[in-house]
């Protein structure tokens, strides 16, 4: 039981609990908070793996921007406790089992197909921010530019959607 393993299990437990409460909480704010918990836990896991930059970005962007937007919208719309309607019989009965089945399938697929991963031991290399930025701006420069364009489009889309028609 190395300290890393301990930390891993703590964080993993935190993440799973967060995910569960995201699912079980009735009020969207609580779901949002639990999702934030998941994200912070994941950031911790990234740090544990030595992916510092990704961890930081995970918190700054996901925690600090995206989830803030969610909370903001929830506050804005003053969304109350969600109503427990059940119009979709299909989802009501088949939903959860199917989800579990999917999880099982994925897990099984991983178990079958990631023999190489099992052997490898991560976290050995610390991914310095410099390397990442070098890759980002040298080899992935086109996708990077594309994403900036995507963001631009998204901004415009959000504007168009959110303005009240005169």
């Amino acid at each position, binding site marked *: 039981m190395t300290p890393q393993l301990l930390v891993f299990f703590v964080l993993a437990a935190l993440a799973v609990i967060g995910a569960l409460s995201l699912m079980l909480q009735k009020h969207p704010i609580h779901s949002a908070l639990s999702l934030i918990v998941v994200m912070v836990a994941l950031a911790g896991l990234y740090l544990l793996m030595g992916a510092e930059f990704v961890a930081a970005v995970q918190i700054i962007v996901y925690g600090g921007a995206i989830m803030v937007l969610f909370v903001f919208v929830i506050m804005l719309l003053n969304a109350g406790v969600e109503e427990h309607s059940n*119009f*979709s019989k*299909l*989802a009501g009965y*088949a*939903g959860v089992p*199917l*989800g579990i*089945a*999917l999880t099982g*399938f*994925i897990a*099984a*697929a991983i178990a*079958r*197909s990631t023999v190489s991963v099992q052997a490898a031991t991560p976290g050995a290399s610390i991914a310095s921010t410099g390397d990442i930025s070098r890759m980002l701006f*040298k*080899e*992935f*420069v*086109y*996708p990077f530019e594309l994403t900036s364009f995507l963001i631009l489009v998204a901004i415009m889309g959000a504007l168009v959607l959110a303005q009240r028609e005169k």
Partner: protein
Amino acid sequence: MQTPILDCLWIIPLLPLLGGAINGLFGKNWPNKMVNTVAVGSTGLSFLVALEAVREFFAQGQQLVRKEYFDWILAGDFRVGFDLQMDQLTVVMLLVVTGVGWLIHIYSAGYMAHEGGYYRFFSYLNLFMFFMLILVLAANYVLLFVGWEGVGLSSYLLIGFYFLKKSASDAGKKAFIVNRIGDFGFMLGMFLLFRTFHTLDFDALFKAVATQNATTEVWGQFGIFTVACLLLFMGACGKSAQLPLYIWLPDAMEGPTPVSALIHAATMVTAGVYVVARSHILFTHSETAMVVVAIVGCATAFFAATIGLVQTDIKRVLAYSTVSQLGYMFLACGVGAFSAGIFHLMTHAFFKALLFLAAGSVIHAMGGEQDMRKMGGLSKKIKWTFGTMLTATMAIAGIPFFAGFFSKDAILLSAFTSPGGHPLYAIGLLTALLTAFYMFRLIFLTFHGQPRYDEHKVHVHESPWTMLGPLVILAVLSVIGGWFALPAFFQGPDYFANFLAPIFGGEQHAELVGGMSPHFLELTLAGVAVASALIGLGVAYWFYVKTPSKPEQLAKSLKPIYTTLLNKYYVDELYAAIIVKPLVWISQQVLWQAVDVAVIDGTVNGVADTLTGVGDGVRHTQSGNTRSYAVWVVVGAIVVIAVIFFWPGAKPVIGAFQGLHLQTLMEKVRP
């Protein structure tokens, strides 16, 4: 040595293009003065530049100048570059085009002053200049074809300049479509040439021809040269209004008169002659082609002349005379006297432009009236116009020491001396007679006799100097334009022929005919030609000045012939019957009813109906409830995973997928 302009020939066509672009883009709300400053200025500038270029051309010893500016098309061993070249032939064409074009621009500035769409007119005109210069300067067939199509386009635009007039727009379309037929042939010719010689550059192509298979194809042998030349000649026929594709030119008179002068008399229509002369090496390698060219030219000359006899619209008379003069040029080319053809091309450019401009001035004076029967007695009222027009008429009729005399004489001579050329010569002579006749008929009808118009309505007035200036200059040119050949009459050298000799080689009418010395023969033939011209003049005088009643009697007595001529041999009707009608029928009955309605629409609608049916069945899964959709998504995901990972049959699929794992994707996105 320094040859700045020769190094960048592209300036010459660029200037008119700029002028056209500026006028077309910004000229809409400009005052006329500004517009014609731009247009005339750009053309004049390119004229001056052309002069400088010619000077340098002479200065550097008349060597062929060939500049490759950039590659336009590169495909395999097929290279078409934006290459311009300059040799003696180009020099002649260049000077004619820019010079006459400039004069006509100046003239138009006055003539179009009261028309709408001033800027439009001038931007088209400059555009035309651009394409014409490209055509003349091009160093390969493809670039030449660009100019070729371009002048076609601008002629279409300018013929249909008064597009509100149905006849005008129809005429434009007619010109365009008829030219298409010719261009089709022209393209085929180009393809054939490329397939044979793997190049379309004049230089390389002609060198190749001259060096390798120099075997001339005899009469009736249809080898590469014959076919290619005939195809090229088909294009030339379309552009230069030869039989059977001449029909568009008379109608093209719907355009403004300066346009008729520039495009449909001086420059564009001579493009066909230019092409034939340019590719003379090919033609001389095929007797058949030469004969065909000669016959077609001769026939057209005579045919058009006959129609010209009876036309009453002043511009149409000129149009038919243009057709027949072009026939002359082709006749010259056909009998191998290319330099004579080009010579006539040049002189014709002068006097025919002059004729049209003068006619324009007349129409201007008559306030838009074009029917000669409603004119008469104008000689005193518009002296300058009369004088210049008379000069031009003499020139075209072949009165001695006017430009037309020398060129026409050279053509007839070479026709006579060419083997088996006597019938050609005879018809040419007859045509000369007819030409003299109908031209003087025009003069007499227009300027002499009693005014046949309402003098109170029409206030005849001389045109402004912007119009008369060009007339005078052109008059001078159409007098002295032919004096290159003057020394030839006194045993001296024929300067024009010698100048073009590097291209066409020396003319070969040196052999003795019937014991006469060539020079004596030349003088004799000249005398005969002059005689015929004088006869034509006399007859015209007799008919239209002495006894004006004569023509009607004649027309009555020869009713069938007269009406046939009047209706231009019913050629248009003929075409309509054998070509247009069937086409219309096919496109309506077969293409529209059968193919379009039945097949295409049927398919489309059928597909649509099928889809509607299917959708009707499937739409019941659309519960509209997002959560159910989510469940379906999950089911799909499960199936996909199950298939990929747990169904052995899907191994090849996975193999296909393993091809594009992350790494290769990276390779794709990496710059």
